[in-house]
């Protein structure tokens, strides 16, 4: 009698992990952008690493409920490690250097994860912010290694896999960043639909009961925080490699705060929030900066206040208003971008 139900349950669980049409559409659009928007590759590169960075924050905020105002600490470590590896030709090949940079950030993530295990959201905000400030000051105090306030100059990035040299138009850089984003997204998606991923949602929903059905709550939080630090480190390394530069700005408070905004725009807890948020945030920044070069932050601020007011009940659920608003914004925003990219031959 149970055999039929078991089959039905298995089917139900397996179906959930299946790719939806929307997901295919999203990645096809990303693929198409390589060929259709060659003149926008520089900004799309920024979108790609910002999306990866936001995906990293989503792993801890959307799935484990850990809020952070200092995620730039891991981004920054990844950035500096990648720049240093390239500058001193310790690991010249960028893909390997990328992995090593991520691992370096993961070490910091593991070490600091124990600080965020306890306490309220406010405690976590302060602790994570503090860690990022400390990292920034350390980088500032060892200029002989990091270049201090001047940044790390003279970084030369070797060809990717020994073959693909980065070009000044950002074509190779964009394809590189997009591929890294895609691979790490696939990994994150796999993890989210695993028993480990399910237990994270349980821990987020009810840590007390989680412990009392045998889940090692702290163990799971340490694991996901370390994983997220790896992702953030890789994102930072992508920035360093595609700009051949690293500066103290990678650790800045604004970077952590902007990241939270990116995720709020896109919505948390469904993996695509960070990616969609990054697209909207960067395009909005670019678009508004073109309209009013001096006051763009005013408009960004206003838009964010509106988004949060309209969708305040939805933040953290990753559904409904914020997402709908995001999707509406996605439909609207690319229009000026396309207009800029349109060939002048139209002559109107």
């Amino acid at each position, binding site marked *: 009698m149970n055999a039929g139900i078991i089959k039905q349950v298995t089917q139900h669980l397996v179906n*959930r992990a299946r790719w939806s049409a929307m997901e295919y559409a999203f990645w096809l659009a990303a693929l198409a952008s390589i060929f259709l928007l060659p003149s926008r590759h520089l900004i799309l590169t920024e979108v790609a690493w910002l999306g990866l960075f936001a995906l990293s924050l989503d792993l801890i905020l959307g799935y484990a409920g850990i809020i952070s105002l200092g995620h730039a600490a891991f981004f920054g470590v990844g950035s500096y490690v990648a720049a240093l590896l390239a500058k001193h030709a310790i690991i010249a090949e960028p893909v390997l250097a990328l992995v090593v940079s991520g691992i370096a950030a993961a070490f910091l993530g593991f070490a600091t994860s124990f600080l965020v295990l306890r306490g309220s959201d406010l405690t976590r905000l302060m602790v994570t912010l503090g860690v990022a400030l400390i990292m920034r000051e350390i980088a500032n105090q060892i200029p002989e290694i990091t270049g201090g306030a001047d940044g790390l100059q003279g970084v030369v990035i070797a060809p990717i896999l020994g073959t693909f040299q980065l070009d000044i138009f950002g074509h190779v850089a964009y394809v590189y960043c997009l591929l890294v984003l895609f691979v790490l997204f696939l990994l994150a998606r796999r993890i989210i639909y695993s028993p480990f991923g399910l237990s994270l949602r349980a821990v987020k929903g009810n840590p007390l009961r989680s412990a009392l059905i045998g889940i090692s709550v702290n163990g799971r939080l340490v694991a996901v925080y370390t994983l997220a630090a790896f992702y953030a480190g890789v994102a930072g390394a992508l920035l360093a490699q595609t700009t051949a530069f690293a500066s103290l700005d990678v650790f800045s408070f604004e970077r952590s705060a902007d990241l939270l905004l990116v995720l709020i725009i896109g919505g948390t807890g469904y993996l695509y929030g960070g990616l969609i948020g990054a697209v909207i945030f960067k395009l909005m920044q670019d678009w508004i900066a073109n309209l009013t070069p001096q006051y763009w932050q005013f408009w960004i601020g206003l838009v964010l206040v509106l988004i949060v007011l309209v969708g305040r009940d939805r933040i953290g659920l990753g559904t409904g208003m914020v997402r709908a608003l995001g999707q509406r914004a996605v439909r609207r925003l690319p229009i000026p971008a396309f207009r800029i990219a349109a060939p002048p031959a139209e002559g109107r």
Partner: protein
Amino acid sequence: MPAVLATQSLEKHFGGIAAVNGVSLAIEKGARHALIGPNGAGKTTVINLLTGVLRPSAGRILLEGEDITALAAHHRVQRGLARTFQINQLFLDLTPLETVGLAISERMGSGGQWWRLVGSKLEVTEEIVDILGRFQLTDVMFERTGNLPYGKQRLLEIALAIACRPRVLLLDEPAAGVPEAERHDILTTVAALPSDVTVLLIEHDMDLVFSFADRISVLVNGGLFIEGAPDEVARDPRVKAVYLGESLNA
């Protein structure tokens, strides 16, 4: 017969208040033991101490002869000590299917696996279906737990503890707040628990206590007042005074 779960002079102070004051309990293997007492007597605090939700101020807790006083809550579960809560502690955004699956995966040691998809392990799925069936939750297994009627949530609360396959099960007022119509399901479920599972029950419903328990401990003001077989406890005039009298008047 050796006690499967025992406490020695267990104490818990909150500030200057002694919520639990020198409680020494011994629960025998396979027992149906009830812990009763007036409101505020410290019954739930005892359960919280036994399961590791709270750390005792003094005293020891022994599970099958081993000292588990300093053991983390999730390790106690892995050693076969599970509980339910007086007020539901469920995962409102998950389905009953996922909820029960979590406990089963964790027990089988595969709950931390990240490379495998949920639902890819047949033995977990089989056991989920079996447990949900036993607790009349099959028809709602795909629904969000937060949307379920209270009676169903209450059944899930117990099913989740059973999914941990405990050797000792602590039930904190399983029938609390359940509407009369659905009460029967809960009582049948509690009565049908496997006989090799040792059960410690906290309950205000005296019908349930006296039909279920073969041993009763009465807790008053954080201290153990009397312990004995149900008929002894029922006959004891002091118990009537402090407890049964109160519940008759209530």
